[in-house]
């Protein structure tokens, strides 16, 4: 439920006026007009491990497969607010929990957690059990346990202790329950009850949010103390803790977690990157492990140790090497074991993390490199630009070997993408970037030719040329979208959700501040942690519409001895709303249609914007209507039929209608918007209604 509320009177609202000069970025940030929702977030695998290590000690081994995290909107952190726990996942969590409990309560360790000894050494002692439960439970559940929670667990401990004849076996069972409790596995972020205005996260919820944001682990005892004392409600209390946490070396864990998430490094950790052993004998899991660590080390070194500018990550020659990596980079490494600092030569082919083995190997196929995958990575992850998915109705018959007779290099093989207009729009966004990196093969090793043909790494990125991979890094570091994308991605990571419209002023001002401050990590962490957008919420998220076959209860009679079948979901709403019937066409103004539909969905950066003018059609700005009404389409098949792009009062002869509903002849081209979601039936009806009513202004 979204509660719209007026602009907060927190400080002066200064919406994005800061320029680029000195002093830029030091003004107050714009507040969100509307905050985003909160949702419970499942601990990621790394967070689970870190939390267990912090609470139960470092030396415990986790035997089992923690349920995979889910990537949503490009981040596991966002997916964490959508996942649940599947049956197999719960099975594993419980099994891991039993093993952890056994290890933690083993004789040599138990003194760390059990602050007492059972009376008479017997198998049952309610008081001692209660002390243990409160102590460990309080840390695991990140809050004090209620009396009811303690009592039920004391009962379990007693039952188990008596049955098995061992006090600590009882505690093991209790510890298991804590480790599978939803309060442990999920971070529940409460808002203060009461006012319908800006809902502030509770002190306790702030502790959890700050802790997993800045240290990627459970709140430490000092933070928990501050939480329970209510200190995290006001700015000063939060700032005190934030500054304390930023001083700690533990922020490195957060930086590693963020970039690891953003760059999909979990594939490296889980051994899912594989290469053909005959084509790439140098590739082993050890190598790719070192490669991932190399990139993370460079990032930590640059952004934390050196307090550097994020953009310079793509040009820096500073790096680290191990001997394993030295084999593929073909450089000597003095240190016999472990890491040593390394600087790529100024006149070499590599500079910046885009030329690291990690990213190159991740964005390649098992048998060869992939300019398209690498280009897609740059667009989507580094520049936050959506690349539409391929159209579903490509006519591949138009391609043939004759059009690409010489297919020795990737550039030659991808000629077909460039030649065909249905493909060029999107592939033109990706392929040139990846082609700059082609001198670095499927595992990132240097090569100058492929199949005997010289590789040409020249190209351009949004109008700026480069001659090789190093040049690409320079151009990328100056790309206006690079910094803002980093800021937004980190914000989404911190809050575990996509941004909402009402946050735009805040985000824009944040981007500008960071631009002025040089995109430094600590600055960004501190700014986000202290911002309104981070500690306010508009409420909780609505349930996802999930279609289910309704079970007509009167036709299904369960057997008299058994209750209804297991597994019926317990959601309150029993019936799902049917999708609305086609709305009756409403008359709308063109301005409304343009602003609500055409500009956001069609006039995107690479399509019908005034820069790109796909198909010669601009669908934004003042002249948009004149580009449509009474204008003949450039598509020959449509023009032959005498259609206009929009024929006033005549939707049946308006090519626009055909395009947005979806043409059924290939000669008429693809459905629009190209590749993305189609317009909803309401939107289609709105446009049809406008045309029928005369296609006015």
């Amino acid at each position: 439920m979204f509660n719209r509320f007026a602009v907060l009177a927190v400080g002066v609202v200064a919406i994005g006026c800061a320029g680029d000069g000195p002093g830029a970025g030091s003004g107050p940030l714009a507040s969100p007009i509307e905050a985003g929702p909160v949702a419970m977030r499942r601990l990621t695998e790394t967070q689970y491990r870190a939390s267990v290590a912090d609470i139960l000690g470092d030396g415990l081994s986790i035997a089992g497969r923690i349920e995979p995290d889910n990537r949503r909107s490009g981040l596991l952190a966002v997916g964490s607010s959508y996942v649940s726990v599947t049956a197999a996942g719960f099975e594993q969590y419980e099994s891991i929990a039993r093993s952890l409990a056994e290890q933690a309560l083993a004789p040599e360790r138990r003194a760390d957690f059990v602050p007492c000894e059972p009376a008479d050494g017997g198998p049952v002692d309610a008081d001692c059990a209660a002390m243990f439960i409160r102590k460990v439970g309080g840390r695991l559940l990140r809050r004090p346990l209620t009396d009811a929670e303690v009592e039920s667990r004391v009962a379990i401990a007693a039952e188990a202790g008596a049955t098995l004849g061992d006090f600590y076996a009882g505690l093991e069972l209790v510890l298991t329950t804590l480790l599978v409790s939803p309060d442990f596995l999920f971070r529940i972020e409460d808002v203060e009850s009461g006012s319908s205005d800006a809902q502030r996260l509770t002190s306790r919820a702030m502790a959890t949010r700050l802790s997993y944001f800045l240290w990627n682990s459970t709140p430490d005892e000092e933070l928990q103390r501050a939480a329970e004392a209510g200190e995290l409600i006001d700015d000063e209390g939060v700032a005190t803790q934030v500054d304390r946490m930023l001083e700690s070396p533990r922020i490195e864990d957060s930086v590693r977690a963020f970039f690891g998430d953003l760059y999909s490094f979990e594939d490296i950790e889980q051994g899912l990157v594989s290469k053909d052993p005959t084509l790439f004998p140098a590739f082993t899991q050890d190598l790719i492990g070192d490669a991932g660590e190399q990139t993370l080390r460079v990032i930590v070194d640059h952004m934390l140790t050196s307090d550097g500018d994020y953009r310079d990550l793509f040009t820096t020659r500073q790096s680290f090497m191990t001997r394993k990596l030295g084999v593929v980079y073909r450089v000597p490494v003095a240190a016999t074991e472990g890491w040593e600092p390394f600087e790529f030569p100024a006149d070499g082919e590599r500079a910046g993390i885009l030329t690291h083995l990690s990213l190159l190997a991740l964005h390649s196929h098992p048998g060869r490199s992939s300019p398209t995958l690498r280009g897609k990575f740059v667009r989507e992850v580094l520049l936050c630009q959506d690349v539409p998915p391929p159209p579903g109705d490509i006519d591949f018959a138009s391609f043939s070997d004759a059009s690409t007779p010489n297919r020795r290099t990737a550039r030659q093989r991808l000629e077909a993408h460039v030649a065909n207009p249905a493909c060029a729009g999107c592939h033109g966004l990706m392929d040139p970037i990846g082609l700059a990196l082609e001198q670095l093969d499927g595992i990132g090793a240097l090569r100058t030719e492929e199949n005997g043909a010289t590789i040409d790494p020249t190209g351009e990125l949004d109008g700026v040329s480069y001659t090789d991979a190093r040049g690409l890094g320079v151009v990328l570091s100056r790309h206006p979208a690079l910094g803002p994308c980093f800021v937004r991605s980190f914000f989404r990571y911190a809050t575990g959700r996509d941004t909402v419209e009402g946050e735009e002023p805040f985000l824009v001002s944040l981007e500008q501040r960071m631009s002025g401050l040089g995109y430094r990590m600590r600055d960004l962490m501190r700014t986000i942690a202290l911002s309104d957008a981070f500690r306010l919420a508009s409420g909780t998220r609505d349930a996802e519409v999930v279609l289910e076959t309704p079970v007509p209860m009167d036709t299904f009679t369960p057997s008299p001895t058994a209750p209804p079948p297991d597994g019926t979901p317990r959601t309150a709403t029993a019936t799902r709303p049917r999708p609305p019937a086609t709305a009756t066409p409403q008359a709308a103004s063109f301005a409304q249609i343009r602003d609500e539909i055409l500009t956001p969905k069609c006039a995107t950066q690479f399509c019908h914007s005034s820069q790109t003018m796909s198909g010669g059609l601009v669908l934004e700005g003042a002249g948009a209507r004149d580009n449509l009404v009474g204008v003949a389409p450039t598509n020959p098949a449509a023009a032959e039929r005498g259609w206009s792009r929009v024929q006033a009062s005549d939707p049946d002869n308006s090519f626009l209608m055909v395009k947005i509903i979806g043409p059924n002849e290939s000669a008429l081209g693809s459905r629009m918007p190209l590749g993305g979601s189609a317009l909803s039936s309401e939107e289609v009806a709105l446009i049809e209604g406008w045309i029928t009513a005369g296609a006015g202004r």
Partner: protein
Amino acid sequence: MMKNDITRRTVLRGITGGAAVSVGLPLLDIFLNDNGTALAQGAPLPVRFGTWFWGCGMNPNRWAPSEEGDDFALPPELEVLANVRGEVSILSGFSTILDGRPNKPHHTGVLATLTGSTPKTGDGVPGPTLDLLISRQIGSATRFRSLEISCTGVPRHSYSRESESVVNASTVSPLEMYNRVFGPEFFDPNDGEFVPDPKAILRQSALSAVSEDAARLEAVLGTHDKQRLDQYFTSLRQLEQQIEVSLSPPNLEACRRPDLPRGEDIGTDLPQALSTHDLMTELLVFALLCDQTRVFNMLFSAGLSGLRNPGDEVSHHELTHDEVVDEVLGYQPQATAFSQASLGAWASFVERLAATPEGDGTLLDNCLVMAHSESSFAKSHDTTRIPFMIAGRAGGRVQTGFHVRGGGDPTSRVGLTMQQIMGLPVSEWGTDSMQTSRSISEFFA
């Protein structure tokens, strides 16, 4: 639930006094699941449902038979099924109808098939997938609600999904599968006297305490979080069920613990996929014989089929787009070799089940397995004419060995039919152009 708890605890003291108590029939009743479907001697053999998936489709003009009915000639791409043609029905010409929605290549086709509705966004999952709908009906009597298996090494390759972000991850390692199903918690009836593990009962008690705690949480959550907490509850109950089942010995004659799988080699190479498939099929057969699960999902290769010959630069999926259609042959030889290898694996899967005796017939007789892909002609991302092959007689409920043409009907007809065969009381399924109330009657002749 409370009554059960008390009874459980009472029994617990009796059993765990230390003496090995053989669990007699009356006591067995208490440990039955809530459904009350018993597996006492003489009870009917369970019917199992499974999906078998391969990526990047086939060549429609070489795969679909030209005649309908029982006596159709096997077209070239179905010749691999020659040995089991009587056990497998071919459904051709059923299509995913997009309604103008985006076709995320190698993805939308399968999600639409399994949910009955075409997703509105590329990554969307409009509802729980077919296997989950069926497992809610029949999966609560077994230790595992369902088993998900991937033969190419990636756990997130799974089409068993509650929603977009709630995915039942696949097991990728035969050894891990063995440990999970036949590890220390499995009782082989041939091992001798069954003694329930006292710790198991204690675990169940503990889980009910977690349930109670979680119930308190519901009050403070929004609707989306409640939905997710619901799924957590369901999973918790499934574990309780699992423990409950482990308290009584498997009661199927043909059940025994299989051999430890050897020579595991996990990856996306075709030889690796084939060997993993072999090992996993073996384990699955025993998992079914021992009624450890009644629903399974076997993923031979993902929609974006990464199958590859060792030493080759390009994979199956890349070939479907890059390889030229041979003028003489009329198809892409290398890409087709991969889809044929996939169908070969399917054939060996069917053969293995058909060769496994159970009761008076075979394991396959008591199964219903839906093999399908995410597209027909992968080169053009074609989601019309999606291939389906249905194996098994579902315990005698259906006949098999025929070919039916869908004529462009939505693939939801297949999903609807599967549900009806498995006893779900549904008369229609799907939304918009995928909505249907017509099942495929040829099964029920």
